């Protein structure tokens, strides 16, 4: 149990439904930006999304083909490890289930690859059965570069560093290989409801 901080009472903002706010998080109406380097600006005619690695045959979608795949509108709560939570965010994108239907793979793990060199690791389970999207619209508009446009991964049930910005593909791996922040001491899985922020949490 944490001792009481003398003189601290909190400035709690009223939250419609506290059960939607994971432990240690606060609700913000802003959309803060976090990134380890400059924002990439890849022209759409050079953009493609590729699934490769431990797969029978790699598959790739150029931008126009990605847009022609069946898309879904999703409204989800997102949780950043830097403590902010944003409720009811609206996205449009392609379900990762739809993309995975195009490849054959026995591998249970994958690394998400991005422009700028960022990576993050996920299990196949964490991106399957309606849990993850390649999102290219936010709140009805094309996703802005600062927020990961033209497309970012959206995995809202995990801390938001797993929802990799500027996403370009998935590499299936036999073993679970830590990604960028996972190598710098952040938790390998990152479930906000279990407060898995850092290694050992």
């Amino acid at each position: 149990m944490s001792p009481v901080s003398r003189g601290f009472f909190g400035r709690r903002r009223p939250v419609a439904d506290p059960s939607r706010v994971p432990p240690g998080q606060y609700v913000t109406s802003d959309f803060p930006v976090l990134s380890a380097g400059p924002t990439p600006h890849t022209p759409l005619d050079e953009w493609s999304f590729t699934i490769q690695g431990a797969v029978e045959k790699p598959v790739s979608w150029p931008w126009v083909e990605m847009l022609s795949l069946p898309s879904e509108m999703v409204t989800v709560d997102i949780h950043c490890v830097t403590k902010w939570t944003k409720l009811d965010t609206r996205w449009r994108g392609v379900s990762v289930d739809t993309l995975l239907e195009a490849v054959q793979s026995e591998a249970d793990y994958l690394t998400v690859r991005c422009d700028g060199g960022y990576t993050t690791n996920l299990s196949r389970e964490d991106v399957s059965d309606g849990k993850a999207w390649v999102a290219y619209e936010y709140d009805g508009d094309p996703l802005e570069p600062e927020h990961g446009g033209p497309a970012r991964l959206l995995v809202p049930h995990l801390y938001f560093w797993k929802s990799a910005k500027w996403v370009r593909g998935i590499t299936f791996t036999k073993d679970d290989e830590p990604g960028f922040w996972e190598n710098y001491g952040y938790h390998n899985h990152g479930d906000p409801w279990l407060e898995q922020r850092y290694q050992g949490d």
Partner: protein
Amino acid sequence: MARAALPGRLNWQLATVVELRDETASVKSIVLDPPQWQGHRAGQHVDVRLTAPDGYQAQRSYSIASAPEDEHLVLTVERLDDGEVSPYLVDELTPGDELELRGPIGGYFVWEQSQGGPLLLIAGGSGIVPFRAILRHGTAVGNPVAVRLLYSSRSLDEVIYREELIGLEDDGAVEIDYTLTRVWPDDWHGHRGRIDRELLEEVAWEPSEQPLVFVCGPSGFVEAAAQALVENGHATKRIRTERFGPTS
């Protein structure tokens, strides 16, 4: 500071507040004595957790302002008036209080001698905090690389660590360029206005010298500065950024 290896897990610990230093009208440095500090690298941060009498808790992250070699752990915090944690830290905390924290956290926005240089540090407002750690660390290891700092503030009164930065520059640890964006004294000899490509061209090392660049500040500041660096020909792989959200 007692040091203990705590492999694998970052435990919460109760640090004693040793001293509070006024830096500007809205910024204080909190000097802390954590009981089990495993050491840190210049540029890392900590999580701070406050607990109300009814058990309610609030957590935030703050950059470490002290070098690994310093006797105490120092956090420098800017009061954000609509914030929840920073007003408490700046206005309420007093020496002798205990502050719950864990860290160090983050391993990318750090500088160690092995990474080499030259170093270009670009700070907006309280984005200077991790650079104090880097500059003090550089001094502690004998200033092995050339360092330039470009520091953007709204006004001279809002420049954090003003005296200390003058001292570091006098000691040859760093060359500093200041730019003031809102108001400046009549006899101001520094730069005026926001950081742009032109100012960076004037101040930064040439891209051919492959400086290692760190940019820290509010999100819009970091986006603009990093973008301008890329446009000026600096390699994206040599630019590391850390952004503050608009909330804290």
